């Protein structure tokens, strides 16, 4: 094998290795996360709803079933209108506050590293016991998005 071919083979292997390691890390995290979340029958979560007009409602210690999604829990606590698609549900309205222009309902999760943007659609996210989740009616054209106060 020539030196040139060797260099490109190494580059290709490096890409494959990095991607495979990242997928392994991702699935390791997701597996442990799901395992932790489905250990008990019932869960209690803190759900915040920020209407973007200075009003924030908190539903602390809301009881739900293990395996419930954020959408399930939001529907337990509020009146919701949403649209389903193959990539997941999009919330159109919470308690009469409807998406308009650049202002949309966007969800956040409180992690050890602070507020983190919801990584998946709300109907794809399985909620764990003791989690703090937050619906924020905010301008989504700003990057990075404004974190919950």
């Amino acid at each position, binding site marked *: 094998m020539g030196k*040139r071919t060797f260099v*490109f083979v190494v*580059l*290709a292997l*490096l*890409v494959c290795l*990095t*991607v495979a390691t*990242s*997928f392994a*890390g*991702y699935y390791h*995290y997701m597996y442990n996360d799901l395992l932790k979340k489905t250990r008990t029958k019932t869960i209690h979560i803190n759900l915040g709803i920020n209407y973007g007009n200075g009003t924030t409602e908190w539903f602390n210690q809301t009881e739900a079933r293990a395996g419930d999604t954020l959408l399930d829990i939001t529907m337990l606590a509020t009146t919701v209108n949403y649209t389903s698609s193959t990539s997941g549900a999009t919330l159109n309205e919470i308690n009469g506050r409807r998406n308009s222009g650049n202002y949309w309902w966007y969800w956040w999760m409180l992690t050890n*590293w*602070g507020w*983190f943007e919801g*990584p998946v659609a709300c109907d794809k996210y399985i909620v764990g016991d003791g989690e703090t989740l937050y619906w924020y009616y905010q301008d989504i*054209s*700003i*990057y*990075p998005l404004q*974190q919950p106060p």
Partner: protein
Amino acid sequence: MFVNGFLSPWGFAGMIMPFQMAGMFIVGVAGGIYKRYVVGEKSGRLCLETAVLGAFLTLIYDIITNSGTAILAGRAIIFTFFMGITMSVIHICSNTVFFGSAFTPLFKTLQKFLVR
């Protein structure tokens, strides 16, 4: 970078732009270096090499921009990279195809213009 940073339908790139520019800088430098080794090579080989280069440079670009996102948002870099791996794979695969398939015809066309 101008189109991507200011005219994107997703809005103004904002604070992430310096990281995107750093990523693009590396792509530009790599292209400048690779140019020296292109002349006289078979197009099949060039397709494969540019496909691999496209994948590698996209990975580097994603690592830089994901790190930028993590730093700006105050998150752990490795966690941010793991959570964005699906998008990174789509980015890498599409760029592998684009680089591999577009390089040879573009190179030949540009050579014709340069000869004129």
